[in-house]
Structure formats: structure tokens, C-alpha cells
């Protein structure tokens, strides 16, 4: 039987949690058994969960605030620590990603460096040491981030959560604490505004 190496099947869930050897690359979503092991305190499983969540959080914060550098890195660290502490209480009612983004959303909002984040270094380019971007994607992605600065924070959040990070409207509503329809409406308006801004000769 061939073993598919899809992201979610990189682990053998047949192994006991304490003997799981994690052959995970960044971005792989932990299986329920690994998640369970991480909640029970297994250090390797915890690392694997964090490896999965770190890129999500860092990208989310970078795109949300349009910032890069130490303010974002510090905020991301705060979120990671919050996730480590809260993970035992996670109940798999929604996706792990949505749960982590909800925590991050709130942690970043309370973050002492929030002001630094908001007025911080603008993400005019993707730092080579942090992001991996293909040449073809770089320019349109940066254009989009520049155009997103004209959006209100609420519309920007809705757009990112639904369109970039693939959360359902329900999950996104849980992250920002509003209704599903509100999220859909904000995302739709955001896309309409971006369409105008990104047109040749547009606002951006």
C-alpha cells in the first residue's frame, strides 16, 4: 500500500504518542494523535504543532500589520508562548489554525508593541531571511499588501482570514468576535475596494 505524503499524513498515528518520531516539515498539519500528545506535554509533539503554527501566525501578523522586523517577530513570540500555555485547554471544536489565529489576534491586540506594529516598518519587501517567495509572486503580493493599507482594519482582517488563510466564515467570525455574515460582507467589500485600487492607474 502506498503511503501518501500529503501534509496531513506525514505521521504514523499507529505509533504510541511517546514514541512518535516526528518527520514533519514546516507547514504540515498535526494529526489528532500528535495534537493529543502535544496537549499531554510531549515535547516533540509540541514542537511539531508549533512548527505548523508559526508560519501561519507570522504571516498573519505580517500581512495584517503590513510590517516586518522585530515588532512582528516579538509579537509572534508572544503569540507562540500564549499558544503553548493554552494548548492543553484546546478542544477540537474548530480547526487548530483558527484557534491559534484567534489567540494570536487577541494577543497581538493586547501586545505592548502594538503601536510599534501599527506604525512599524512597512512591508515594502519580503525579507530574504524570513520569507520564501517566488519571483513571479513577489510583485503582485507586495502590490496587494500596499493596496490593503487603504482598507479598514476590520475589512483587512476579514479578507486575510477568509481569502488568504482559508478560514471559513464561521471560523473567521470566531477569530474576530463577530457574525458570519459580517465577515462575508467585510471580505466582499474589501475585495471590491482592492479591485479598484489594483486596477492600472488605481489608488495604489
Amino acid at each position, binding site marked *: 500500500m502506498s503511503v501518501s505524503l500529503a501534509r496531513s499524513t506525514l505521521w504514523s498515528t499507529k505509533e504510541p504518542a511517546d514514541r512518535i518520531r516526528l518527520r514533519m516539515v*514546516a507547514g504540515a498539519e498535526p494529526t489528532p494523535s500528535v495534537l493529543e500528545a502535544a496537549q499531554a506535554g510531549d515535547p516533540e509533539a509540541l*514542537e511539531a504543532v508549533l512548527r505548523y503554527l508559526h508560519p501561519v501566525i507570522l504571516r498573519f501578523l505580517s500581512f495584517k500589520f503590513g510590517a516586518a522586523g522585530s515588532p512582528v517577530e516579538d509579537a509572534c513570540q508572544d503569540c507562540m508562548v500564549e499558544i503553548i500555555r*493554552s494548548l492543553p485547554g484546546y478542544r477540537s471544536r474548530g480547526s487548530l489554525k483558527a484557534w491559534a489565529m484567534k489567540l494570536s489576534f*487577541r494577543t497581538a491586540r*493586547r501586545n505592548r508593541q502594538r503601536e510599534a506594529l501599527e506604525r512599524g516598518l512597512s512591508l515594502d519587501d519580503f525579507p530574504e531571511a524570513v*520569507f520564501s517567495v517566488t519571483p513571479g*509572486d513577489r510583485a503582485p*503580493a507586495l502590490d496587494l499588501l500596499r493596496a490593503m493599507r487603504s482598507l479598514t482594519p476590520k475589512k483587512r482582517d476579514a479578507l486575510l482570514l477568509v481569502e488568504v488563510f482559508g478560514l471559513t466564515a464561521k471560523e473567521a467570525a470566531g477569530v474576530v468576535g463577530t457574525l458570519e455574515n459580517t465577515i462575508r460582507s467585510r471580505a466582499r467589500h474589501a475585495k471590491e475596494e*482592492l479591485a479598484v485600487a*489594483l486596477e492600472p492607474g488605481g489608488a495604489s
Partner: protein
Amino acid sequence: MSGDQDPVEPALAALREVEVRPDHTEAAVRRALLRNRSPDPSPRLRWARFALAAALLLLALPFFATEPADESQAPALVRLAGGVLLQQDQASRLSLFDAGPTLRVELEAGRVALRLMGDRRERVVQVVAGPVRVEANGTVFSVEREGDEVEVLVTEGAVKVFSRGESLGLEAPRRWTVDGPTALSVAPAGLALLAEEVWVEPLQAESSQPEAIGPEAIGPEPETEPKPETEAEPEQGPEASAKQATSIKRAPHRAQASGEASPSGLRARRRNRRAPSESRSLPTDAAPDPTPNPPRASTPSEEPAAAPQARYQAARSQARAGQGQAALRALRTLAQEAHPIWSPLAHLERIRLHAQLGEAAQAVDAAEAFLQSHPEHPLAPEAQSILCRLDPEHEDCS
């Protein structure tokens, strides 16, 4: 918006493809794990929690040594001369001073509930809890203190609260809290809920009886007693509270004879009181109580009705004794049950406890869930107040 000319979709697709380098993630994960193992970033808070837990443990040690474990959660009931009933939680510590027209209770820690029976306008009862003084006659109220945090609940009559140079009259039903140096805040609450919360039925009701403590058992008023008429802050010097006071440390009160203030009598009075209190109209600024007729009221003889109350109080005692996580587990279980009174109260207590423990994210989650499941509850404003304090930019706070 997904047509061929749409410039947004290709840009979104490009943004989705931006990835974080694995080596960067690896380093960040290591850093987060190391940071998590390092001491708490707020050492002052950690120290304060440790000191509080240690102090509570020291206070509770004598009781552990002399009392059976099954009574450890039961509040003590004390009958003072002149028709004053005093109920004291475990781990609470207080001193009494009798000065003729004034009975003064100095609450150092924990919770005390007072029922002032009959028309006692000629005599004032003062409860001094840190920077807060509460004066009352002919009423039922409780005062709870943890450090500088004081909570006053009034379920019958009225009290007057003096704090930080200000005074405020509280008519039942009211909850008053002071959170450190912040301003006074009064949140309306349902009378029936508060009544349940203030006056706890002793767990060992059948075997316990209040003990009469006459004036001879109470020390004279200290010379430095502040004048009750003034609205100045009560003095807090150690000389004012230490000497000549009768310190009551929680003790079970048992007797063979059944007296006027026996627990069964209390229970009967409470049942009698419940009916009129349900029909009493709340003040105009108080939200209507959505649970005025809990099933328990219609079936007073059913035993299970008492269980949630005891569990709720036990969880609160656990929290006060520093067993926050155990208390949270018990409260979560109770909150998930469908009890009309105690489930929402347990839910709200969870929110408070998470907030006290510094678990802001959990507190916010719990507050959101509370507001979603009990939007019309009389205590919903308090849940929202905590939510907005922890997360001022929350959608519900704008």
C-alpha cells in the same frame, strides 16, 4: 469578482504562496519553547499569587488540624447578641468590636455574610474590609475581600459603602466591587441570584446550629475607632484592629437544642422569603431576572436542588484557597449543566477566576460564551464589563 479581469484573485493567490523559511520557523520555535520554560514574564504577579496562596494556607492550617475534611467547605454560622447572624467562609479571618450602638466587623480576608434581623435602626453594623467600609442596619449583605479587592452584595435592605473618600448607598439588589484604584462601579443584578449567592445554606445543616456570642465574648471598641457618622476612610493601623478584638476563626457550631436561628429555621425563612422576592420589582436600571421561577422553587423538597449551590460554593472556596485550576474544572462542569440559577453563576465565576488568574484569553472566551448563551441574564453586564476590560477593542465593546 472572479472574472478574468479581476486583479485581486491573482494577487491573493500570490500572497497565499508567500512562505516562511523553515530555518526561521525552527529558530522561532526554539526561542518560544525556551521562553516558555523561563520564569513568568510578570514576576510581581507571580510573587503576589505565591504570597496569597501561602497566606491562605497559613490561615487555613489551624482548621485543617482540628476539623474533619468533609466540613472544610461549610461556612460557619455565628449568632451574635442582638439578632445579628454572621456567616463566615472557610479561610476567612475577621475580628469583632462591640461599641454599644456600633458592631464593627473587621474582615482581614475571605468572605462574611450578615443577616441583621428585625428593626435594628438603633444599632449600626460596620464591616471594614481594607480600604472599604460598609454600614448597614436591618439588611442582608455579604462582603468578600481578597487583598484590596472587595465585593459587596446586598440582597435585602440597603447598605452604605465608604471607599476612598466617597460614599455610595446601595439598595438591594446590588453588587459593588472595587478593583484596586479604579472607580466605583455598580452592576445591577437579579435579587434571587444574589440572595442565593449571599446566604449560604450550611452543608451540615441538620447537625449544626449557630452559636450565640454575647457582648461579653466580644472585645470593647478600640479607642481609635473612627466615628461612624463620618465618611472618611476607615483607619487601617494595626493598633486599631489587633488588640482587644475577638478574632473568629472559622469554627463549626454544633448544639443539641434547636434555637430560633437554627439552620432549618433559616431554610424555612428563606423559602418564605423567596416567594415575595420573586415578585418584587427590580429597580428601573436593573435587568429583569430571566429566571424568576427556577424549577427548584416549585419543588422545594427535591434534594438535588441544593447540590449545585454547594458545589458552586465549594468551587469558590477552592479558588480562594489557591486551587484555581480545580475550581475552574468544577465550575466548568457546573456551567455546562442546565441548572437555571447555578449554571450561569458558575459560568460567570469562571470568567472572574480566569481573569484573576491572568488567563485573559480564556476569560474572554468564557465571557463571549456567556453573553452568547445568556444574553439577557441579569449578570450579563458584569460578563461584558470583564470582557471589555480585558479586550477593550472587542466587537461587543465598541
